[in-house]
């Protein structure tokens, strides 16, 4: 006989403010098999949990219902509470009286109380059919995969490796470093970005526990926490990095010149290239699309007519160590991992959408990252700020904020958080480059919330004379060599026109290309902007809803470098915690198949998305289905596919769900 205890939480006034707790308790006392009812001001607090533990022991309760906040919030906490009193943690059911009741029916206390009573009645009915469940121990591969070699991924990889575990860092570009490597200085300290990043990149390359796979992508992910099986595509580099010493002869002599993605089109690179001087690994890859010899080979193979491209081979001839290897092909390796940290970073919002600003049409309208490259000593202009149109030095530079951010129509609704700060930084650095330069910054609100951020923005105005104009820019058009920026200054209430030599658009941050596809491969979800969704925005910011898959950096949303690094370390801490045990306890809420009722039609095998069911022969020679519990994710698809009702799902059995329906 079930002896059920019902505990109603006030949650301060969150629940008690709308739901009449006493009435709910009175109703609970009359519910079948309920022998004890109590309430708590804060059930999740230590005293609250203690009172439950004592009540369980004192009243010999063998089932517990807690009417409180969403089970997605404190189910784990309350399971531990119940377990501490010696009761199986799965003999617990939580009635969602806050998110699904008091908070959403605040206007109508009568209806809210009636609903609360029914939600408790449903939880009592469900828990009365609950059975004790026991997690299983499954093996764990203590090896981590970090996807994305930006600063967040680098930090995560280093911390996991320092914790003593094997790490594989996969980066799809030829070098790690991500966007931070492209920056000149970082706010608010004006540290040289490369100076603080490059040592970490070298650490990654030299760390004995880290295997660095650049020019490689994660293609397929199977398995589950502790036992991921990942297929990694190694794109053909056509250069044998074991022989190459990175002497640079090849990329200095390569005749094929094309715009460098790293310099955002302002500089050039060769077909065999390293993206930037401090690249890690400092060894080149061949861009097979633009390499003249590859075009020659393709032309010969397909036997096309027309002019035959030259049979170049300069890099092969000049290479002192014979590292060029035309035979190299794409390869796929399958590796085992226990945890995955996703740090795929961001990309800048493409301002071309804003035709009125002329991005992409007027050469002197550039993005923030392009200005970074111009100001960078190792950039295409070795740090000399010039107008891309005629190479002259700009005197008047106008900054336009929120390009793509805070704009529901053409851009994204969110604020990209870092643009205000890097506009201030650019204004300061331009003044240092050339005291004659006058910066104008059109802004809506200055967002400088970090440490020393506000002071930094003030210095840009007071010490470096940047002129902040509160208003949006309506149009930019060229006029005899200058760019006329029409905007308004809402503080003085008049339109403003500035003849600028250079216009810098503060483009916002959006997820890196292919983020949605990566989410599907990792079977994590992403929001409407394709940023990955963390398990809980406040309480589990670096975890996902898929156990064993963690997140770090701007792939979750716009954030600055300190946050990316902090999250890299946080994700690493989570991985280290996961790897600190030798085995993992599997979630016992998996499917079960009753061999007596099973008729061997094996439709469940077809329906199972995780291939967690296979067929087996019973002692009396019948073929029936059987669940592989370690692979089963507990979705319950097999249960609704099974006609004779042989399949069931622990924790959400047919009996339990029917019991919830039947008490309405």
């Amino acid at each position, binding site marked *: 006989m079930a002896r059920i205890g019902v505990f109603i939480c006030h949650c301060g006034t969150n629940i008690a403010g709308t739901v009449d707790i006493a009435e709910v308790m009175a109703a609970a006392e009359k519910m079948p098999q309920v022998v004890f009812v109590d309430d708590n001001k804060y059930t999740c607090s230590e005293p609250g949990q203690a009172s439950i533990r004592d009540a369980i022991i004192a009243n010999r309760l063998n089932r517990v219902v807690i009417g409180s906040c969403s089970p997605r919030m404190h189910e784990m906490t309350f399971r531990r509470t119940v377990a501490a009193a010696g009761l199986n943690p799965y003999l617990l059911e939580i009635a969602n009286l806050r998110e699904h009741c008091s908070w959403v*029916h605040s206007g109508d206390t009568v209806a809210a109380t009636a609903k609360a009573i029914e939600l408790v009645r449903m939880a009592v009915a469900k828990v009365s059919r609950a059975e004790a469940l026991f997690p299983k121990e499954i093996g764990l591969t203590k090896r981590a995969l970090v996807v994305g070699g930006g600063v967040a991924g680098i930090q995560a990889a280093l911390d996991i490796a320092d914790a003593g575990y094997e790490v594989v860092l996969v980066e799809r570009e030829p070098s790690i470093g991500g966007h931070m490597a492209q920056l000149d200085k970082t706010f608010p300290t004006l540290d040289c970005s490369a100076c603080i990043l490059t040592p970490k990149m070298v650490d990654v390359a030299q760390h004995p526990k880290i295997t660095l796979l650049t020019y490689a992508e994660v293609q397929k992910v199977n398995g589950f926490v502790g036992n991921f099986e990942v297929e990694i595509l190694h794109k053909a580099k056509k250069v044998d990095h074991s022989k190459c010493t990175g002497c640079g002869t090849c990329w200095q002599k390569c005749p094929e010149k094309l715009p460098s993605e790293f310099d955002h089109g302002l500089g050039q690179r060769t077909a065999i290239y390293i993206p930037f001087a401090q690249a890690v690994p400092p060894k080149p890859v061949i861009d097979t699309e633009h390499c003249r010899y590859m075009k020659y080979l393709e032309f010969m193979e397909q036997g096309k007519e027309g002019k035959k491209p030259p049979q170049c081979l300069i890099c092969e001839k000049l290479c002192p160590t014979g590292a060029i290897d035309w035979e190299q092909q794409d390869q796929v390796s399958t590796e085992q991992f226990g945890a995955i940290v996703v740090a795929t970073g961001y990309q800048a919002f493409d301002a071309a959408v804003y035709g009125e600003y002329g991005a992409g049409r007027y050469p002197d309208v550039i993005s923030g990252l392009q200005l970074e490259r111009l100001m960078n000593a190792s950039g295409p202009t070795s740090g000399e700020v010039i107008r891309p149109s005629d190479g002259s030095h700009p005197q008047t530079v106008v900054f336009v904020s929120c390009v793509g951010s805070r704009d529901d129509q053409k851009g994204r609704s969110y604020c990209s958080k870092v643009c205000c700060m890097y506009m201030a930084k650019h204004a300061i650095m331009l003044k240092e480059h050339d005291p004659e330069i006058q910066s104008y910054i059109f802004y809506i609100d200055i967002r400088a919330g970090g440490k020393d951020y506000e002071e930094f923005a003030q210095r840009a105005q007071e010490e470096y004379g940047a002129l902040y104009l509160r208003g949006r820019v309506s149009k930019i058009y060229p006029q005899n060599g200058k760019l006329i920026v029409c905007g308004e200054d809402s503080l003085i209430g008049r339109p403003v026109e500035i003849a600028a030599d250079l216009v810098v658009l503060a483009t916002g941050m959006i997820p890196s290309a292919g983020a949605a596809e990566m989410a599907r491969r990792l079977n994590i979800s992403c929001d409407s902007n394709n940023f990955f969704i963390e398990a809980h925005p406040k309480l589990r910011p670096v975890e996902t809803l898929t156990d064993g898959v963690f997140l770090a950096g701007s792939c979750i949303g716009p954030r600055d470098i300190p946050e990316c690094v902090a999250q890299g370390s946080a994700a690493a801490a989570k991985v280290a915690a996961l790897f600190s045990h030798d085995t993992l306890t599997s979630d016992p809420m998996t499917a079960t198949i009753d061999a007596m009722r099973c008729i061997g039609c094996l439709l469940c095998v077809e329906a199972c998305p995780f291939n967690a069911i296979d067929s087996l022969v019973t002692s009396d020679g019948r073929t029936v289905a059987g669940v592989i519990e370690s692979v089963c994710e507990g*979705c*319950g698809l097999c249960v609704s596919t099974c006609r004779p009702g042989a399949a069931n799902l622990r924790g959400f059995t047919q009996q339990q769900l029917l019991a919830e329906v039947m008490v309405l």
Partner: protein
Amino acid sequence: MIEGYQPKIIGFLCNWCGYAGADLAGTSRITYPANIRVIRVPCSGRVDPLLVLKSFQRGADGVLIAGCHPGECHYVEGNYYTRRRFALFHPFLEYLGIEKERFRVEWVSASEGKKFSKLVSSFTEELAKLGPRREA
């Protein structure tokens, strides 16, 4: 609209999207009518047509299934089966005399709290217009 008639809705919400969306409506304090009783299921694919039928028989005026948007299922393919199963079961219930407005299968993601609250409000309104179900 019958005076004082409050339609009763049973909602099978998938833990990862529908239920999370409802939670978000809660944390965002978006009010909606108190006519829905939520039953949490791991995936919308877990909902057995038998449960929907027993809900109607037990006196539900409306049944809602809220799962993840196709392609976003936490279990990768769960909602594809939901879509097929109830694309067939829905007209079948209608064929047996249960008005098609009484049964809805919707895709509500974890970030669509507002959509969930609007869904419950419009469903309650529609059911109020339809009036209570006759006894089987």
